């Protein structure tokens, strides 16, 4: 069975972006928690585009839409449906 977008994202953050970071709640604010900063944001964007084969435009991205794993997963899933 394919892993959910949230699971893949969570693992990427804990294993590649911030190795050793404790388990992440889907609704944790990644910017508030210091998981994402401006450079990490670009890394996550690149990872998402490569891993899930979607193209996210700036119109999809904002502090309110890219702040939690659940929000990023929703964006990816919405892009997947559009294609």
């Amino acid at each position: 069975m394919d892993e959910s977008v949230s699971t893949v994202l969570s693992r990427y953050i804990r294993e590649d972006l911030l190795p050793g970071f404790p388990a992440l709640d889907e609704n944790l604010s990644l910017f508030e928690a210091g998981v994402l900063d401006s450079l990490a944001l670009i890394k996550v964007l690149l990872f998402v585009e490569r891993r899930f084969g979607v193209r996210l435009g700036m119109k999809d991205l904002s502090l309110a839409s890219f702040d939690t794993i659940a929000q990023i997963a929703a964006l990816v899933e919405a892009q997947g449906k559009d294609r």
Partner: protein
Amino acid sequence: MNDLYAAWQNLGPLYLFSSPAYLLALPLAVGGHWLLPRRLRNGYLLLVSYAFYLSWDPRFAALLLGSTAVDYYCGLEMEEAGRRRFLLGLSLTINLGCLLLFKYLGFFCEGLALLLSPIGLAPSCSALHLIVPLGLSYYTFQKVGYILDCYQGRVKPCRQPVDFALFVSFFPQLLCGPIERAGTLLPQLQGLRGLDGAACSRALYLLTYGLFKKVVMADTLADFVDRVFAAPAPSGAEVLLACYAWSLQMYCDFSGYTDLARGSAALFGVQLSANFNLPFFSARPREFFRRWHITLSTWITRHVHYPLLFWLGGRLQGRWGLSARGALLLGNVLAGLATMTLFSFWHGASFNFLVMGPYLYGMFALYDGVAGLLTRATAGWLPRWAELLARPLNRLVVLHLLVSIFVMVRPTSFPQLQRMVAGLAGGFDFRAMGTSEWWYVGLGLILFFTHEFFQYRGGDELYVTRWGFYRQVPFYCCLFFFALQAGASFSQRFIYIQF
């Protein structure tokens, strides 16, 4: 009665945490707070906070009260959907307008006069150099943070006027921060506060160590730094030492003040945020911003950098064929430059601070570029000993980068800067410097760095408070010994108050 007043005046200004007047008044304020019934405590603390502020200049308490009333009203009314944008605009205009008027108008007018002088126009700006109300930059940012959080729905507006006024004017953090978020401080002020043994131990440590950093370290270093910067022809050795001493003085002055603020607040059952986390242990320049004046850098990152980054990204995508990634990368550079400039210019309305922002950003980008290149070029073939040597060398480079940034803001005039550079160019003869006054500063430095090293290694700022009683006693005795040696020179300077 007059004698009593004169004796009180001799104890120094009440609004400075290291003055005897403050250190005597604090236990009285704390005692009164805990003796009162719970429902009266916030009102009492508000009165104490305004008395504290009034002791500096009664005129500006009206400004504090008036702007607090505006933000209380704007926050409350924001619950109605139709007027939210208008109320946000109103609050921002008043808050930032006050900041501009009192802090920056004189500087901008002088800049304009300088630009107009070649064509024979020289407007007088002396009337525009107003007294900057103490704490204006801090409480303005705290109120703006509250309004933005209300607007974005991150916090519910505060309905109790006394609680809100106390949130703005709580005296331990009124003049120099930490700049607290509404979601962190308001619940503490509105909830049930208590004072237990752990809080008392924490308060004792923060107050004592804060005094040590301020009185022993910062004030002693300040005497030397001031003397060198005022000298008509300082030697190279003096200038070099003064540069390091100034960097350490800034850190000890501000972090000492913050510790005193946090210790004072702890006695009222309130935990203020840590504003420093051992900044001189930063392994990378960017890390420094997560360790120095943390509450300001967090505020600017949340309210300026990220919104600007997304806004710029949206504007830039599609231009010159930029993808979302390219737009974010370019947006990040521009937003970073703007953020650094705001961060440094917040500290003071002078040319030094205006230039410091872009310099900071340029230096950090250069460091990241060079360090990245070296890491990639040497990956896999460096021997183990060289890797081990590279780490302290890297920290040494970062430390000197930071010293070069601090030094930028110290000269008060161009001729002074010229004298410093001339001194450096004249060579370094350390033997010519007297050493008799340095012994206890040297011992203090050893104690200070050893203590900070243990804090860094254990990742625990308050490790001393977890010691047993008999281990704590010698630690505090050491601090008092150094304070006595410093001659209880309760200085009236606090560098960050002027910001």
